[in-house]
């Protein structure tokens, strides 16, 4: 686009050669827009209002975590300036807010933007602008595609793998399964469902009923009745927290008692099982990759104590049973670790490079045996889970760590 004369070009390359000769690159401070000697600007969007507002606690937890980091001196002496906007889980709103973050607030990177549809809407834009879209709060499998989208990276285990794990478990444990599926009708729901069907393989016809809902719908009551009437004895519940709670409650109300599999997206006591009713939630099976702080076996774990101290100091009065606090803490820690490793070279390129060089990093809250591993071709940080079922007011883990680690797609 910029037309260079031959002379400018020559002068320019001379200058570059000169600079290369002089600089021991490591000792130099290098910044992209949004980073200075004193500050790192991080952009974020989250649904603080609207149907998916149960996720709002994640944004608040991340904000509180960064405040803690700043209170403790910041990252290599730089304070985090965290700018977060409400997008109401509405893609057009996300587009507008993200454009504001990148072009007007001039953030260094975008962190943990939430939701598959909102992130899909900005996916191309972020990669065109070459601004990191880091550790997004969605497990869609498309975030791990460094060839086409080198500026976007996921964090949690991807939905397709998780769906396949449930499918294998159903085939191994349920006799003559007839499966009913409730699915949010968007890329997130479809990702789970496609993984699930791939896991069923030749038994894909065991799905007797697929019911869908839109994230803008008020309830899923009619879908639940439809599923019960299909005669299914297994229920795979692909829903975000508000709808998960509705589905669990409705199943109990209409006295439908299938073997119930719930996606990890809604593994929250505060946002899902409590509003749905603890009794109605018993024995629901789901995949976990993080510790449940209420599980007595972790009572003395250092990360859980640290988390409890953090919650008491920075988020007094918050509902400790809301899984968003736990998730937000762990993912914010991963970003801080990435930025620490960047040292004084806070360029967007180096951030992606560091994010793609994790080897066995044990982020707090992760279950023992589950670690963060990435590489320039592996953009899936966490790829292992353990199955668990709801028992009382916590989870009971069972089986081995199921890992898909090392796969790049």
């Amino acid at each position, binding site marked *: *686009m910029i*037309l260079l004369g031959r002379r400018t070009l020559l002068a320019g390359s001379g200058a570059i050669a000169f600079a290369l000769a002089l600089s021991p690159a490591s000792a130099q401070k290098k910044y992209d827009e949004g980073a200075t000697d004193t500050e790192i600007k991080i952009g974020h969007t989250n649904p603080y*209002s609207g149907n998916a507002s149960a996720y709002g606690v994640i944004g608040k937890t991340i904000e509180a975590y960064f405040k803690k980091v700043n209170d403790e001196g910041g990252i290599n002496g730089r304070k985090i300036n965290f700018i977060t906007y*409400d997008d109401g889980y*509405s*893609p*057009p709103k996300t*587009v*507008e807010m993200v*454009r*504001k973050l990148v*072009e*007007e607030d001039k953030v260094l990177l975008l962190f943990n933007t939430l939701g598959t*549809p909102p992130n*899909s*809407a900005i*996916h*191309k*834009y972020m990669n*065109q602008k070459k601004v990191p879209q880091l550790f997004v709060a969605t497990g869609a499998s498309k975030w791990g595609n460094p060839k086409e989208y080198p500026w976007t990276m996921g964090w949690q285990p991807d939905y397709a793998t998780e769906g396949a794990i449930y499918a294998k478990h159903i085939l191994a444990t349920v006799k003559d399964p007839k499966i009913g599926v409730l699915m949010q*009708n*968007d*890329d997130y729901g479809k990702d789970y469902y496609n993984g699930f069907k791939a896991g069923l393989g030749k038994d894909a016809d065991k799905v007797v009923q697929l019911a869908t809902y*839109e*994230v*803008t719908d008020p309830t899923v009551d009619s879908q639940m009745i439809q599923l019960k009437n299909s005669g299914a004895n297994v229920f795979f519940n692909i829903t975000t927290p508000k709808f998960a709670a509705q589905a669990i409650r409705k199943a109990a109300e209409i006295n439908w008692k299938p073997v119930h599999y719930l996606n990890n997206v809604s593994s929250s006591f505060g946002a899902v099982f409590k509003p749905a009713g603890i009794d109605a939630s018993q024995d629901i099976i789901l995949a976990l990759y993080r510790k449940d702080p209420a599980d007595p076996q972790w009572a003395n774990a250092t990360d859980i104590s640290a988390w409890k101290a953090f919650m008491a100091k920075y988020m007094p009065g918050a509902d400790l049973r809301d899984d968003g606090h736990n998730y937000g803490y762990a993912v914010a820690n991963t970003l801080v670790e990435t930025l620490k490793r960047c040292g004084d070279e806070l360029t967007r390129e180096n951030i992606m490079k560091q994010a793609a060089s994790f080897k066995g990093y044990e982020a707090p809250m992760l279950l023992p045996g589950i670690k963060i591993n990435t590489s320039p071709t592996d953009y899936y940080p966490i790829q292992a889970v353990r199955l668990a079922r709801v028992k009382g007011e916590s989870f009971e883990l069972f089986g081995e760590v199921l890992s898909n680690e090392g796969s790049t797609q």
Partner: protein
Amino acid sequence: MATTATTASSPVTAAARAAGHKWWIWLMVAGLALLPLLGGKTGFISNYGFLQLSLMIVYAIAVLGLILLTGFNGQISLGHGAFFAVGAYTSAVLIDQASWPYWATLPVAAIVCFLVGYIFGMPALRLEGHYLALATFALAVAVPQFLKYRHFEWFTNGVQGINIFKPDPPFGLPLSADQWMYLIVLFVAVLMFWIARNLLDSRTGRAMMAIRDHSMAASTMGVNVAHYKTVVFGISALFTGVAGALHAIIFEFVAPDSFRFELSIAILVGAVVGGIASLPGAVIGGIFVQVIEKYADALTKKLTTAVSLPLDLEPWTIYGIALILLMYIMPMGIAGGLAVLWRKLRGS
């Protein structure tokens, strides 16, 4: 509504206004056209700023469509967001699926929206007043669902929407994409307002207003009421549809969620707040839609912390208060209110 509008646009004042005001309107347009050079080059206005300006102009065109229908023809529509959506999707699908250049999609969006408006208008116009309002409202509610419909997904891409890319300025002009699109939007807006002005000054325009003021009298004078009503509905949809197409191009993204029925209400509120029977009112209405609608939330939050109010205000509080106050102080919209103020100042 109808009586106040008559006085505002009686032939004498309209002609005098047209002659007297023309020079400064063109001066303003020229000033706006130079903004990319003045504000953009100095860095005074960011690219995001230009996007905001473009959106204001786009909403002004959308509001203009509704003003033609409601202010000058007396038909109420609560569903203009639907035509906005049709225009936006027409443009986005043509760019995304058929790789059309963005400018070529504008006339197509205009024609499609005219047809949709005309066809929808035919049966709906048997309905009068609030029945028509309800029918159009139903349209506004139905369109987003329609866009999500499973069997249309191959071209609408369902809830995920369509990403398109903003075109770069041609001939290597030293402008950013946002600045260039701002100029395009401004050009289209001037064209649309010019067409509207000429339409209203023509025989058709006089027939439109006659129908608004007294449809039975109009039909006695030989005006084909049903025909005019349907055509005006189509033209109104055309204006709003062009706005929708421009929105898709500058925003680079369309999704059913962008066109929820709140958009229709926003356009109506913009028209009423701006001045329902006034072309400058459309501009004010467009600015209102973009600024107040989008920033009421942030403004409420800022105010709550600034005055440290003890209660937690809902995001829409400021919006509501602003609307109530405006309707009390300026019942004829901001344009009408300013005109009254101007006359008072000159009179004293």
